């Protein structure tokens, strides 16, 4: 059975004098390594340059608003049920008169919290949501925690801001710089 066409038969034959002198093969090896010396390096200078991770990347959570800027979430709790890490909790409230421009449904989430230490970014909440209210943004990551407080994200951090609307297939997002130039990036 042939698994690959790159395999080489091992042989135990006596080495010729040229092979015993090592020098030709050493020169060959040195030529290969020096070629790599001048090759372009594929390294991406991470904190300064971030790579575009594709439209399916699951990053920072966002509670979507609809076209008129009303929160879509109706606090049905399906995301909390779907969450395998039990990271989501919420408290529902009834919409008062005059709040129609704030919440789309008659019931809304007064408190919506995600524990970012529990969240495993599986995206099941996104799939469970019947109102298309929660998304995991593909263009932003949850920042690294430095302190223990502030790990539970409330609505202040989750609800989409009107000046920073999230669109899944936004082609502009692709414009993240990917290739650093060696001179600038080496700092």
């Amino acid at each position: 059975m042939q698994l690959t066409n790159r395999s080489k038969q091992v042989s135990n034959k006596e080495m010729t004098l040229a092979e015993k002198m090592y020098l030709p093969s050493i020169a060959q090896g040195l030529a290969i390594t020096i070629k790599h010396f001048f090759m372009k390096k594929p390294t991406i200078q991470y904190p300064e340059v971030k790579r575009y991770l594709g439209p399916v990347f699951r990053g920072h959570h966002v509670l979507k608003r609809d076209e008129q800027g009303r929160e879509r979430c109706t606090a049905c709790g399906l995301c909390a049920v779907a969450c395998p890490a039990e990271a989501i909790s919420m408290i529902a409230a009834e919409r008062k008169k005059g709040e129609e421009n704030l919440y789309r449904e008659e019931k809304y989430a007064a408190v919506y919290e995600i524990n970012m230490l529990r969240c495993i970014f599986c995206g099941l909440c996104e799939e469970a949501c019947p109102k298309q209210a929660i998304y995991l943004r593909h263009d932003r990551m949850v920042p690294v925690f430095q302190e223990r407080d502030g790990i539970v994200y409330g609505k202040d951090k989750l609800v989409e801001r009107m000046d920073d609307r999230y669109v899944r297939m936004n082609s502009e997002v692709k414009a993240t710089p990917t290739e650093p130039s060696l001179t600038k990036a080496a700092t």
Partner: protein
Amino acid sequence: MDLTVLLVKGLIILVIFGITLLIATYSTYAERKVAGFLQDRLGPNRAGPFGLLQPIADAGKMFFKEDFIPAQASKWLFILGPCLAMLTALMSSAVIPFGDSIRFGEYTIPMQAIEINIGVLYIFGVVSLGVYGIMVGGWASNNKFSLLGAIRAASQNISYEIALGLSLIAILMMTGSLSLRAIVEEQATFFEWNVFTQPLGFIIFLTCAFAECNRTPFDLPECETELVGGYHTEYSSMKLGFYLFAEYINMFVSSAFISSLYFGGYHYPFMNAVHDALTGSMGEITGHNIATAIGTVVFFAKIFFFIFFFMWVRWTIPRFRYDQLMNLGWKTLIPLSILNVVVTGAGLLYDIKYTTWLIVVVMVVLAVMSSARAPKSQAAPQRA
């Protein structure tokens, strides 16, 4: 000796000492950078611009680590080991001529710490003392792996020193002097550089220099896959730092040694024309000093090339097995270097300098013939 001459001498010694340390420091940085580039990475680039402060960060780390001495270790020998390694490494650069000479007033001072007529012997003596640093350290650790590493280092250094010395003898025969300056002066014209008159000797010397410095492919003493860390397994903090540092100083010194023995030291093609032009246009003394400075720069360029070559080889060739190492040393390099001495001597009888090319030509012919005669390796019909 005049006081001013002494003063300038002292200055030169201090400068060489400082330069040796500086180059060794930045060799650690260069090693990591070169390793990175050869492996399609960038290497350290976070500390300072281009990571230039990395050696300082490393040294700081080394100083702040716990300085640990194992309970069963022989304490004073344990401390003596790295000291010896460092001391011998630093001593050996004393006799290397870094440039022609500086003139001021009526004085002419050679760019060299000490000019002695047995410079080559001095370097040999100091370098072979260097193995004591490793041996003492490995033995004092009271640890099987350290001892094994130390024994390997000792036997390897002794084996390769013979071939090293024999390949040098051919050069000494051609020069008729043990003084490094005399050897460098001998190679004034480009095609009299010893690498052209002694190609085989150069290859043997280079190989042995790798072995003497314990650099890959001969780094069996610190072979981490077999011996944990080799002779410095038990060392930490700046004692370990000294061992590593001594290795880089050795690398610098042997690069300097190779370039002055085989690559004409501070000589470069058309240097007499440059010298004459400079003395003609800027006066006897200034012109001469500037010409010396150019020669020194050229010498350092050669040294840096060889340091780079050491690193380049390190990231290309895997380590030898121990029996391969011994076979190469005793059965190949020593007979070849004896042959080299004999052929050089025969050539000198008839005043021909380039006789060792004969050995090279014969070896190349033999190699080509043997590989032509070898049974063609079957192109492995694997589609069965």
